[in-house]
C-alpha cells in the first residue's frame, strides 16, 4: 500500500484567520483506493482543512497537490474539473429540479465547461441514464423523479453523494455525511460509502460518528486544535493517549482551552 504514489498530498498546510490558526502545519497523504477518515473533536479544524483542499479557503502556508500537480492556487471549479468532488456537510439540493436532474446536472459537467458548448447542446438522455445508474448505486433510484424539497435528510445525503460521484472524480471528499441521521440510517449510509470505496473510489471521510468511522475506514488522520496529533490504522490511533485526551477533553467541553497536557507525542 505504501508503494503507490499519493493521489492527494496535503503538505504543511496552515490556515490563519486573523491571529487564530484554524489549521497549523498539517500534512498527510491520501493513497489511491483508500478510505481515509479525517476525525477530531469539534473545532479541531477538519472543515477548514477540507475547505483548503476544495479551494473555499486559501491556505496561508503550505500546498495541496492532486496526482503530483499543485492545485493550491486554483479556484474551486478548476479543482473539481481536475478530479476532486465534494459532498457538503449541509445538503444543498437545487430545489426547483428533480432529484434525477440534480444528479444529471453534475453528470453533464463535460458539456458545461464552456458556456458556448452548453448553449449548443440540448440532448440529455446520456446524462439522465448515468444519473439513474448513480441513484441506483446509492440506493435511492425510487426517488429519481421526485422534487428534493420534500425528501427526508437521508435521501438528500445520498442524492448529494450521487451528485458528487456524477462528476466522475478521482477523489471523493465527504464532509460529515452521517450527521443528522439516526443510527440505523447512519449505519446504512456508512455501508454504502464502504461499498463505493470497494468499487474503486478513493474517499476522504470527515465524520463525527466514531463507531462508523472505526467500522469502515482503513486509516485515520486525527486533528485537534488545528494540529495533526495522530495518523494510522484506526485501532492503533484510538489507543494513543493524546487522541483519547482530545476526545475526553471535548466531552468535558474544555477542548478549546486546554490542549492535551501530555501532548508531546507525534504520529
Amino acid at each position, binding site marked *: 500500500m505504501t508503494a503507490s504514489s499519493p493521489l492527494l498530498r496535503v503538505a504543511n498546510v496552515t490556515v490563519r484567520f486573523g491571529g487564530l490558526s484554524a489549521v497549523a502545519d498539517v500534512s498527510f497523504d491520501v493513497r489511491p483506493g483508500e478510505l481515509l477518515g479525517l476525525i477530531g473533536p469539534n473545532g479541531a479544524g477538519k472543515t477548514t482543512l477540507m475547505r483548503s483542499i476544495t479551494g473555499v479557503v486559501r491556505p496561508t502556508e503550505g500546498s495541496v497537490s492532486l496526482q503530483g500537480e499543485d492545485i493550491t492556487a486554483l479556484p474551486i*471549479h478548476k479543482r473539481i474539473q481536475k478530479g476532486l468532488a465534494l459532498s457538503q456537510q449541509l445538503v444543498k439540493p437545487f*430545489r426547483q*429540479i428533480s432529484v434525477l436532474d440534480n444528479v444529471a446536472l453534475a453528470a453533464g*459537467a463535460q458539456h*458545461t465547461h*464552456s*458556456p458556448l458548448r452548453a448553449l449548443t*447542446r440540448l440532448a440529455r438522455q446520456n446524462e439522465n441514464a448515468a444519473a439513474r445508474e448513480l441513484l441506483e448505486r446509492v440506493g435511492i433510484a425510487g426517488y429519481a423523479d421526485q*422534487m428534493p424539497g420534500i425528501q427526508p435528510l437521508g435521501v438528500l445525503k445520498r442524492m448529494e453523494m450521487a451528485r458528487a460521484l456524477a*462528476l466522475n472524480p478521482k477523489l471523493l471528499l465527504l464532509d460529515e455525511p452521517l450527521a443528522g441521521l439516526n443510527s440505523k440510517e447512519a449505519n446504512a449510509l456508512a455501508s454504502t460509502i464502504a461499498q463505493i470505496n470497494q468499487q474503486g473510489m478513493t474517499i476522504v471521510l470527515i465524520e463525527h460518528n466514531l463507531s462508523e468511522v472505526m467500522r469502515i475506514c482503513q486509516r485515520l488522520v486525527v486533528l485537534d486544535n488545528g494540529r495533526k496529533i495522530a495518523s494510522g490504522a484506526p485501532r492503533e490511533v484510538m489507543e494513543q493517549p493524546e487522541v483519547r485526551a482530545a476526545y475526553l477533553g471535548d466531552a468535558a467541553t474544555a477542548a478549546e482551552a486546554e490542549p492535551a497536557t501530555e501532548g508531546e507525542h507525534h504520529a
Partner: protein
Amino acid sequence: MAYEISLLTAMSISVLFALSLNLITGLCGQISLGHAAFLGIGAYTSALLCKAGLPFFATLPLAMLVAGLVGVVVGLTSLRVRDDFLAITTMGVVFLFVGIVRQQDWLGGEMGISNIPVSGLSKTGFMLLALGLAAATAIFCVYLKKSWMGRVFNGIAEDEDTMRVLSIDVPRYKLAAFAIGTALAGLAGALYGQHFKYIGPDSFGFIESITVLSMVVFGGIGSVPGVIVGAALLSALPAWFQVIGDYKLLVYGGLLFLMMRFSPMGLAGIVRSLLKRKAPEASPAAQGVEP
C-alpha cells in the same frame, strides 16, 4: 390603423427589451436595476451611426456589439458583488450613463438626438421587423432555457456556491448572461431610436430601468411567455387608458409591490398554481414544492 401599427411596434420593442432583462435577472438570477442604460447605448450607437451615413440595418449588429461589450464590463462587477450590492451597483450604471450623455455635446447633451435618418422600411415593414426580432428573441430564450446553458443559469440563480462545487465556472456564465442580455437590450435600443426618431438622456434613466423590471416581475421572473404578456400589457396600458398614462409610475410601482407581496412568480406563477389546482393528480411529485 397607423396608431395600431405604432402601438404594436412599441409593444414589440418593450417585449424584446423585457426578454433581454429576463435573461440576466430571470434565467441567471443576477439583479439589474440599470438595464435601461443598455437600451440607451444601443439607441445612441444606432442613431449616431445612422447620422454618420450607415444604413439602419448595418447599425443593428453594431448596437448589439457596443451594448454587449459594456455589458461585459458591468458584468465583471457582478463577479465581485451579489444580490443587494449588485442591485445598487447596476443602479449606479444607469445614473452614470445618463450623467455622461448629458455632458457630451457629440451625444446631443440634454437635447438628445433628433431627426434620426429613416430605415427605408414602411411603418408596417418596421412593425414586422420589430415583431420578428421580438419573436426570434423569445424563441432563442425558450431554446436557451432548454439547453445546458439554461440548466446552469438556473443553478447559478438558485445557489452559485454549489454550482462551483459541481465544476461550473460561475464567472464565465455570469458574463455570458450579461453579454447576451445587454446585447439584446442594445438591439431593442436601436429599434427604439428608429421608432421614435428622437432619443434623449431621459429616455434611458432609472425610471425606464424600473419600468422594464416591473414588466418582468409582473409577467413572472424567468418565464418567457409570462414576460412577453407582462411587457406587452404594461407597455400598451398607458396608451389605452389615459389615466394609467398619467399615473404610470404609481401603477407600475403598485403592480411591482402587489406582485412581490402576493405572487412573487408573477402572472406565470398565478397561471401555474391555477393549472396545478385543476389537475392535482397530474403531478403529485410537484406538490408542496415552491413553484
